[in-house]
C-alpha cells in the first residue's frame, strides 16, 4: 500500500479530477444516436408562422413541419399533396381543389378546406400585415380586401364549398396560379389555435402542424428539435429526430461537421475558401438554384441611357470566370429565366465578344473608352460580391478601356440608395418564390417596384400580360422568349451574370436528402444507408473522413 502525504494526495486528486473533466468534455468519448440527423440552419428562424415568414431559414423549418395543397415535382410542376386533384374551369378563372380526407393535424383533427380558406384570408388580412399578401392578389377582391377597400372577407374569392372542396375565383386566367399553391405561405392554418394563442401559437407546446415532422423543442438562438410524425399521411420519416442548430460562423460549423457533430451543411455554413478542399469529400455537391445574379444599369442616367453602351458593357463580360473565382458551382447566364424553369433559353443574350463591344462603344462616341464619364459600380458589402465586381471591373478595363469606380455599402443603406438614387451600375439578385417565369420576368415591368433600372418598354409589359393569361405552355414559352430578347439583347437594361448554386455537403452515411432548386431542405426521405443501418457496436463511431 502506498501512503501519500497530504500535499501529494491533493496533487493526485487534482490531476485525476482534471483528467475526468477532460474525458467528460471530449465529444468523441460519447456515442451518438444515429437516428438523429443534425443540420446547421445558421440563424434563428425569424418566424415559424407561415403567414409571416419571409426568409429561407424559416421556410426550411416550416417545409419539414407542414405540407400544402401541392408541391413542385422534379420538373418544377405542381404535384398533388393535400389536393388529390383540381379542376380548372371557366377558361382559367376558377380553380376547384379536391382535398384528401385522410390528412390529419398533429392534434388528431382532420385538415379541411376551411383551414385553407382561413389561412389565405389571414394572409390577406391587413391586420396580419404579411409581406407576402400580394402573392394572392390574382384572387377576386384579394387586393381590395388587403387595402381595406373591401371589408367583408366573404367577398374574397376563396371559399370552402365543403370540408374537402376549396374553390378559388381569379380576376383573370392566371397560368401560374397552381405554382403559387406550392409556396409555404399558402399552407393551411388552424383558426381555433391562432385565435386562442395569438403570436405564441408557434411555440412547441402550442403549434399544430400536418407535415412529416413535429416541433419538439425550440431553444431560441440555439437549436430546434423535430421528431418524426408517426401519423404523417405519406408515411413516417426514417430518421426519428432532427436537430437544427443555429451556428452562424461558417468555420465553426465546418469544424463541427468534420468532428461528426453535424450531418449536413449548406452554403451558409461553408467558407468560400474551403469549397475547393471540400469538393473532394464524399457527399459534396452543387445544387443549381432558381436564383439569378445580375447587374442593372440606371437607364435614365448618362452614359447608360444609350442602349449601345449597355450592350457593349454586357458583351465585354466573360461569364465563364464566375464558377472559377467563386467555387460555388455557379452557372454563367446571358438570359434571365434560370435553368430548370419553364421558358429557360440559353441561346438568348449577348455572347462574350470584345471586338463587337468596342465597336458599339465607339459608335456611341467613346472610342477605346476615351472621354467616357466617371461611372460607379455599387454593391452591398460582401466578400463574394466584391470578387465579382473586381473581376468585371478588370474585364471592362481590358476590353473597353473604361475604368469604373467600385463602391460598397451596408445592405440597408444600399437598398435605400437603389430606391432614391440608383448608381450607374448596381448589383442585385432574385430568387423564385414559386417556380414560374412570371415571378422572374415581372421584376422589370414599368410598374414593378423592383425595377431599379427605371427602364420601360410597353411591348415587354404587354408580352408579360399575355404570358400570364396564356394557359398553353408552348405559346407561353414563345411569349417569354420574345420578352427575354428585349430584356437581355435589344434593350439590355440588365446584365444577367449567373444563376447561383447551393454548395452542400452531406454525411456519406446518410442518403435521401433533397435540397431543392428553390432552396428548400426536405428531410422526410433522409435515412441511413442500408449498408450502415445495422453496424456492429464497435463500428458506431463517426466517419471523420467526411
Amino acid at each position, binding site marked *: 500500500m502506498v501512503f501519500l502525504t497530504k500535499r501529494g494526495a491533493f496533487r493526485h486528486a487534482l490531476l485525476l479530477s482534471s483528467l475526468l*473533466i*477532460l474525458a*467528460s*468534455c*471530449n*465529444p*468523441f468519448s460519447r456515442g451518438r444516436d444515429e437516428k438523429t440527423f443534425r443540420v446547421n440552419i445558421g440563424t*434563428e428562424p*425569424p*418566424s*415559424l*408562422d407561415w403567414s*409571416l*415568414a*419571409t426568409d429561407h431559414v424559416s421556410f426550411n423549418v416550416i417545409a419539414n413541419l407542414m405540407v400544402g395543397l401541392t408541391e413542385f415535382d422534379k420538373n418544377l410542376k405542381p404535384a398533388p399533396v393535400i389536393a388529390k386533384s383540381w379542376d380548372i374551369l371557366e377558361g382559367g378563372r376558377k380553380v376547384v381543389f379536391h382535398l384528401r380526407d385522410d390528412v390529419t393535424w398533429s392534434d388528431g383533427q382532420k385538415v379541411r378546406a376551411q383551414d385553407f380558406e382561413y389561412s389565405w384570408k389571414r394572409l390577406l388580412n*391587413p*391586420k396580419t*400585415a*404579411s*409581406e407576402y*399578401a*400580394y402573392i394572392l392578389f390574382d384572387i377576386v377582391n384579394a*387586393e381590395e380586401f*388587403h*387595402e381595406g377597400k373591401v371589408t367583408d372577407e366573404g367577398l374574397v374569392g376563396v371559399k370552402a364549398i365543403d370540408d374537402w372542396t376549396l374553390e378559388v375565383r381569379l380576376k383573370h386566367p392566371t397560368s401560374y396560379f397552381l405554382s403559387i399553391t406550392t409556396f409555404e405561405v399558402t399552407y393551411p392554418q388552424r383558426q381555433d389555435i391562432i385565435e386562442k394563442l395569438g*403570436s*405564441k401559437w*408557434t*411555440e412547441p407546446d402550442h403549434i399544430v402542424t400536418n407535415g412529416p415532422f413535429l416541433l419538439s423543442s425550440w*431553444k*431560441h*438562438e*440555439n*437549436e430546434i428539435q423535430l421528431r418524426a410524425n408517426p401519423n404523417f399521411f405519406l408515411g413516417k420519416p426514417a430518421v426519428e429526430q432532427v436537430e437544427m*442548430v*443555429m*451556428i*452562424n*460562423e461558417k*468555420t*465553426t*460549423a465546418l*469544424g*463541427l461537421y*468534420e*468532428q461528426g*457533430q453535424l450531418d449536413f451543411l449548406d452554403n451558409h455554413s461553408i467558407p468560400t475558401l474551403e469549397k475547393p478542399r471540400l469538393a473532394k469529400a464524399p457527399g459534396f455537391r452543387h445544387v443549381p438554384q432558381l436564383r439569378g445574379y445580375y447587374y442593372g444599369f440606371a437607364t435614365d442616367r448618362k452614359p447608360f441611357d444609350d442602349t449601345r453602351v449597355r450592350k457593349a458593357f454586357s458583351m465585354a463580360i466573360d461569364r465563364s470566370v464566375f464558377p472559377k473565382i467563386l467555387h460555388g458551382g455557379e452557372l454563367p447566364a446571358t438570359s434571365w429565366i434560370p435553368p430548370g424553369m419553364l421558358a429557360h433559353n440559353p441561346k438568348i443574350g449577348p455572347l462574350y465578344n470584345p471586338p463587337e463591344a468596342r465597336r458599339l462603344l465607339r459608335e456611341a462616341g467613346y472610342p477605346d473608352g476615351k472621354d467616357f464619364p466617371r461611372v460607379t459600380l455599387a454593391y452591398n458589402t460582401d466578400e463574394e460580391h466584391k470578387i465579382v465586381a473586381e473581376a468585371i471591373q478588370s474585364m471592362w478595363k481590358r476590353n473597353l478601356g473604361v475604368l469604373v469606380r467600385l463602391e460598397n455599402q*451596408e*445592405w*440597408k*443603406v444600399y*437598398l*435605400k*440608395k437603389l*430606391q432614391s438614387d440608383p448608381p450607374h451600375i448596381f448589383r*442585385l*439578385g*432574385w430568387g423564385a418564390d414559386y417556380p414560374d417565369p412570371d415571378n422572374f420576368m415581372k421584376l422589370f415591368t414599368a410598374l414593378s*417596384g*423592383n425595377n431599379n433600372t427605371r427602364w420601360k418598354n410597353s411591348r415587354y409589359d404587354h408580352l408579360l400580360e399575355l404570358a400570364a393569361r396564356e394557359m398553353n405552355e408552348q405559346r407561353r414559352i414563345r411569349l417569354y422568349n420574345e420578352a427575354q430578347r428585349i430584356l437581355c439583347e435589344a434593350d439590355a437594361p440588365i446584365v444577367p451574370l449567373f444563376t447561383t448554386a447551393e454548395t452542400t455537403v452531406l454525411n456519406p452515411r446518410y442518403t435521401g436528402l433533397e435540397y431543392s432548386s428553390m432552396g428548400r431542405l426536405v428531410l422526410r426521405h433522409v435515412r441511413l444507408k442500408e449498408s450502415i443501418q445495422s453496424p456492429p457496436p464497435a463500428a458506431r463511431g463517426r466517419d471523420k473522413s467526411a
Partner: protein
Amino acid sequence: MARFLVKRIVHGLAVLWVVITLTFILLRITPGGPFDRERRLPPEVMANIEAKYHLDEPWLKQYGRYLRGILEGDLGPSYKYLDRNVSDIIADTFPTSALLGILALSFALIFSLPVGLCAAATRNRWADRGCVFLATLGISLPNFILGAVLIWFFSLKLGWFQAGRWGQLSSVVLPMITLGAASFAYLSYLLRSALLETLSEDFIRTARAKGLREINVLFKHALRNSFIPVLTVLGPLFAALVTGSFVVEYVFAIPGMGRFFITAVADRDYPLIMGVTLVYTTVLVCANLLVDLLYSLVDPRIKTH
C-alpha cells in the same frame, strides 16, 4: 448614505433617459428601414406593415409610445423575430450572456491577481517581463483571432472542448477564456502598475523598516491600497462582459444577447436595438453604483457622500 444612493439613482435614471432618446433619434435618421428588402414590397403591403408597428405615426408620437411602453414594462415587438417581443428575446438571451460574462470576469480576476502580484514583486526581472508580455499579448490579440486559434487547437486538433452547441460543459470553457482574456490582461497590467506605485510609498518603506516579511508587506499593506484603480474599471468591465460580446457569441454560436448589438442594427430592428441598449445602460449604471459603494469598503477614507 441614503442621500448618496438617491442622488446616484436619479443620476442613473437621467443617463437612461438620455441614452434612450439619443438612440431613438439616431435610429430614425439612419438610412434604410426595417422592412426594406431586396424584394421591394408593394406600397399597400408596406402601408399595412407600417400601420401595424405604428411606423406611420410622427416620430414624437412613436417616442411617446415607446417611453410609455418602458414604464409599463413592454419593450415592444421585434421587427425581425415576428413571433416574439423584445422582452421575451432579452429574457431568453440575457441570462446566457450574463453567465458567460460572470465566468469570464471570474477567470480574469482569478488569474490577473497572481500575475499582477508576481510582476510587481519581481519588477524588471524575467518573471515580470514574462507577465508584462502576457498582458500585452492579451490586450492586443483580437478576440476573434484568439477564439479561432483556441477552436483550432483545443477543439479540432485535440478534441478536448467543443466549439458551438452551447449547453454542454465542454462548450463553455473556450468562450470563457476568449471573452476573459483581454480583461485578464488589462487587470493584470493595471494591478501591476498600481502595486508598483503603492510599493514606492512611505508607509511601505516604514513597514519594511519595521521588519515585516515581504509577503506581508505585499498582501496586507500594498494590495488593498492598489485595488482602487482595479475597482474603478470593474464597473464598465462587468457591464461589457455580462451583456455579451458579438464576436465571441458569433464565433462560438452562443445564444446570448451580445450578437443583437450588431445584427439588430443591420436589420434595423428598432425595438430590439433600444431594448439591448437599455439593458446595457442599466447594467452599467448599476455596476458603477456598486463600485462606488465598494470604494468605501476597500478604503475607509473614501466616504459615500
